């Protein structure tokens, strides 16, 4: 099957406007502009497209929440790809930037937005330049800016660089950051789609890069065609980011419903020589870790199937660990990440991640007792469900699920009473 998202693999130089246009580029936008905005929303709803940032919320439904009675609306593209192990949006923006711009403009037309802001993480400095080039090309050709393709619809696309903060990938923190405030989450409701909750208080759609990049294909080929790909509740393809201990790390675009085995063996080449798979984080640092056994390998990758093995597909950022890896060290690494990235606004996350990190350091140093393993599990469970945003929730996962599945790794540290090297 041809790629829907990583199209540079089928069509070299698709990042250039002329090549993109020759290959159905901006035809989805053209088609959308010939329809009523509400019809575009209905088409996206019918496609079954769900948000690719991790939460999997139905995209068309999200768009339909925007109150059309409000005069000013915005589209914000979440390109703050910062989850450990996630690098799919980078490849889209580097190699197929026009398709993102086109998707964002279709969304802008559907909700009648005044402007599109692409909030891209600061570390993607090079990528932002490529995106900026694509936007300027599109502007010159009349696909962006004033009176797009003579339709009477006008919408500029702006790029805004972040500056190194994981929390800005959380949509309300992202909006604060874009407004020049501290990138800390807001209390909801009001939600971004509502008056008072979005950018500058105006109703706003916030969508992930990969989500919007699907939209031009849906407009050109139709919702029914899109729905044929993937599974019942997970329509379309997904870019799976594979990193860690495999032969061939990289981005692989496959239909939802492919198994972990297919991805990790047929595409990522399996474990390195002489080693065996041990554990998998299917959704970056924030999703529950699972043992990488036959049961996991035979599980389908979709929103509805991963629950059976106690995890989520989320953003599909697979970090693979083999038998050389000490899972206690993994818990410590991921906890350091969340401790560093906690924005400090609410207490359970700020204090919880700090103390989890301290106790894990003690365990890693061989100065802990078995009681400390119970303690981190207890602290993590007490963080759940009581934080303003999902970061606090995510930060509990690397503890609860590593202790649940890999307690032997922790016990090795407390019993040995001396450091065990990872």
């Amino acid at each position, binding site marked *: 099957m041809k790629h829907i998202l990583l199209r540079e693999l089928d069509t070299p130089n698709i990042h250039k406007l002329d090549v993109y246009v020759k290959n159905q580029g901006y035809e989805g936008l053209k088609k959308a502009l010939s329809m009523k905005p509400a019809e575009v929303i209905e088409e996206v709803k019918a496609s079954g497209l769900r948000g690719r940032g991790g939460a999997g919320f139905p995209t068309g439904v999200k768009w339909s929440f925007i109150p059309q009675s409000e005069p000013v609306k915005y589209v914000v593209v979440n390109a703050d*790809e*910062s*989850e*450990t*192990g*996630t*690098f799919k*949006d*980078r490849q889209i923006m580097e190699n197929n930037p026009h398709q993102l711009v086109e998707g964002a403009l279709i969304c802008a037309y559907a909700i009648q937005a005044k402007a599109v*802001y692409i909030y891209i*993480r*600061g*570390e*993607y*400095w*090079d990528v932002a330049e490529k995106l900026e080039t694509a936007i300027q090309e599109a502007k010159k050709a009349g696909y962006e800016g004033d009176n797009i393709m003579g339709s009477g619809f006008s919408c500029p696309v*702006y790029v*805004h*660089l*972040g*500056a*190194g*903060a*994981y929390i800005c990938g959380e949509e309300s923190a992202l909006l604060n*950051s*874009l*407004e*020049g*405030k*501290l*990138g800390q989450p807001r209390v909801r409701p009001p939600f971004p789609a509502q008056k008072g909750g979005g950018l*500058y208080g105006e109703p706003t759609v916030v969508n992930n890069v990969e989500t919007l990049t699907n939209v031009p294909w849906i407009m050109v080929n139709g919702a029914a065609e899109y729905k044929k790909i993937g599974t019942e509740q997970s329509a379309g393809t997904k870019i799976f*980011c*594979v*990193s*860690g*201990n495999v032969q061939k*790390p*990289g*981005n692989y675009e496959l239909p939802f419903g492919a198994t972990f085995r297919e991805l990790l063996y047929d595409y990522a080449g399996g474990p390195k020589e002489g080693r065996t798979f041990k554990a998998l*984080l299917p959704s970056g*640092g924030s999703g529950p870790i699972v043992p990488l056994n036959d049961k996991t390998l035979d599980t389908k990758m979709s929103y509805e199937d991963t629950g059976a093995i106690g995890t989520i597909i989320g953003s599909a*950022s697979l*970090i693979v*660990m083999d038998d050389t*890896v000490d899972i206690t060290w*993994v818990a410590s*690494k*991921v906890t350091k*990440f969340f401790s*560093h*990235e906690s*924005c400090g606004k609410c207490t359970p996350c700020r204090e919880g991640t700090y103390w989890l990190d301290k106790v894990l350091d003690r365990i890693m140093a061989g100065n802990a007792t078995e009681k400390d393993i119970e303690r981190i599990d207890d602290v993590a469970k007490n963080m759940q469900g009581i934080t303003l945003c999902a970061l606090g929730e995510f930060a509990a996962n690397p503890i609860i699920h590593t202790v649940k599945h890999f307690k032997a790794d922790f016990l090795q540290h407390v019993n040995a009473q001396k450091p065990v090297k990872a």
Partner: protein
Amino acid sequence: MAVIGNKKYQERIETHFGKYPDKRSAVMPLLYIAQEEYGWVNDEAIQEVAQLCEMDATQVRSIAGFYTMYRERPKGKYWLHVCTDLACALEGGDELYEKLLHDLGLDHHNDTTGDEMFTVEHVMCLGACDRAPMLQCNFHFSDPENGEYRNLRTADGKIDSERVGKLLDYWRSKK
């Protein structure tokens, strides 16, 4: 006063102000410009950005402090960011960081060389996990001469001393 508000940066500043309905939203891009001018976000930078964005200097300082890509103390000409987050660490990120510190005679607290040529920091995920271990220099993943700073290790999994040394020599030799 008003060094970054002068002609050299005027066009860029105007472009940023033109994107947003209020001036405050331009605080992040303007802090980048100030950092470019002064090498780091110093007091002058804070004052000037505050004046341009019509904000209180304390608010600008809190923004500069919140984000890791604004440096609040002097740094070297080449600002190296080594990813030591999980995905890179599984493939040698920590060792790469330690090697750079060692080769440049630095440590975790003393992160800038005496000749102000290099600053080495470890950072969280750079979004390039398939290229581990990965580093950035002055926010760039690559340069025209050396290509991408990716997979900086040898086939047996050790840090590639030769390539790391070559990169350091290249930066040293550049004017």
